[in-house]
């Protein structure tokens, strides 16, 4: 009986879904196609998605003639990779301690972690700049990485994960003579892969896409990350949409690949955020 839904309604719903898919994809396809077009074709205001003259020149140019672009890419990779690695280890450690180790002050620290979640980044923006300036960390990788090397949201997520972690595993490891630290790094962390995967993807995206922090901390053009570099490039070469679109595509590709390969982790991470 249930299958016999009115067909007109179904057709209407499909038209809605397909139209929205087009609205979603069109800007990206339009940008992708522009990245393979020569500039004069882009500016001619035609509506052709497939380039009349197909060219890789835009990509070649941004990597060879714009010497800062590869540098920005490198900066972004260093900050995102190191930042994510530190977050994985430190958030897991804190989550594990808050869930499994009974140390004095545990409840207080848990409450502090939850409270920190509610503080908007703008409040710490100005004082953090002054602190980093005093430390001499402006225009440095550590200036971007160290303040972001933990993340309260994901400490909370790892704690929720470890609360339900089977006790027998740790007990067996203790009988085998492993220390707690050994148990954590060699037994517990490998078993936490699904939670760590979800965390890693969101933390990586956070570093990769962050605009405000590098805008404030990196004032030297050679230390820009890609978002800031892209914006600076656009202000300087406002009409070179072919290069801007090619650079945008290079920038988007890593996250898109992560998304395609680790789709399930994405959904898990989001489902967690919603449960909070």
């Amino acid at each position, binding site marked *: 009986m*249930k299958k016999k839904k009115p067909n007109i*309604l179904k057709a209407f*719903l*499909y038209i809605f*879904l397909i139209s*929205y*898919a087009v609205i*979603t994809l069109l800007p*990206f396809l*339009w*940008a992708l196609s522009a990245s393979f077009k020569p500039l004069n074709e882009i500016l001619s*205001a035609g*509506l052709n998605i497939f380039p009349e003259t197909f060219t890789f020149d835009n990509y070649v140019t941004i990597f060879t003639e714009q010497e800062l672009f590869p540098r920005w890419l490198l900066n972004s990779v260093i900050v995102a990779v190191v930042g994510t690695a530190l977050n994985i*280890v*430190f*958030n897991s*450690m*804190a989550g594990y*301690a808050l869930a499994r*180790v*009974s*140390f004095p002050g*545990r409840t207080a*620290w848990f409450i*502090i972690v939850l409270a*920190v979640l509610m*503080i*908007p*980044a*703008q*409040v*710490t923006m*100005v004082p*953090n700049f*002054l*602190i980093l300036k005093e430390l001499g960390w402006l225009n440095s990788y550590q200036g971007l990485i*160290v*303040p972001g*090397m*933990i993340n309260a949201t994901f400490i909370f997520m790892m704690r929720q994960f470890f609360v339900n972690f089977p006790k027998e595993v740790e007990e067996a490891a203790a009988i085998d003579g492993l220390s*707690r630290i050994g148990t954590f790094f060699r037994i517990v962390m490998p078993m936490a892969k699904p939670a760590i995967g979800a965390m890693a993807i969101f933390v990586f*995206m956070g570093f990769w*896409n962050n605009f*405000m922090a590098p805008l404030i901390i990196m004032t030297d053009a050679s230390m820009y990350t*890609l*978002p*800031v570099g*892209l*914006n600076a490039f656009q*202000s300087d070469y406002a009409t070179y949409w072919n290069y*801007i*679109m090619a650079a*945008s595509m290079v920038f*988007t590709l890593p*996250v*898109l690949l992560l*998304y395609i390969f680790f789709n399930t982790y994405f959904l898990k991470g*989001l489902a967690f*955020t*919603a449960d909070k």
Partner: protein
Amino acid sequence: MAKWKLTKSQLRDAGQGYLFMSPTIFTILVFLIGPILFALYLAFNNVNLLGQTSFEFVWFDNFTRMASDERAIIALQNTAFYVVIVVPTQTILALVLAATLNAGMKGEKWFRVIYFIPTLTSSAVLVMIFMWMYRPDGLINTILSSVGLPTYNWMNDPSVALISIMIMNIWATAPMFMVIYLAALQGISDSLYEAADLDGASAIQKFWYVTVPLLRPVTGFVVIIGVIGTFQLFDQSYMFSGGSGGPNNSTLTVVLLIYQYAFSNNQMGYAAALAVSLALIILVATFIQRKLQKDEQL
């Protein structure tokens, strides 16, 4: 003996606990709690960064100054307008998309994968693509004029510029909330819909009288996250206007104003006071929303 042993294991637990917590405690103290206290201190001072950094205690001057700061009022108006339009629109769009996808449509997974792409993409890339499409002879105006609709000067007309940012951000953010709604929808038992079927409810009635009320807690969450996010609008305004908040202050938001005062005008004390005020506004908005939701549930 036994008691001594217990303390020893307690001591070990304490040591291990703090060892595991040490990176977190360090970062929270140095880059979160310290800066929050520092921000409160800055808010009551005039800060001079030239030469030796110096502070001058000025009581509530930084706060009273806001009332007569024309740009602060414009920034607050713009931000409030942005919040009031974007939060309901993106929430409704997310709910409608999720409910449609959940109606047993074929290819649900593929639609979901496609819809989610803007959410992954960096704000910088989205702004570049939209600035290019928003050009006077760009894709959007070309499409509009080809179907006989009016065209706009999306980025340089002060009456349209903020709306251009709204359209882009609703488009970019709604899918994230859609995924959250979808997860919740999949937890609603079929039996409720079957009961509604027996009562002869139409699809729209089922959506309105079964789905929407059941999703109310999720909607509360989506609205809170939406309000927090929209109050903090910065990246898009900064990039669209080249950091100025123009044309004619039409894309000036509170956070962009804070940035300008702190890093272009060298008035960090006033910037900190604005930031503290913004945090309070967000906090109050969150509490009001929570309170309303609790009252509704009783």
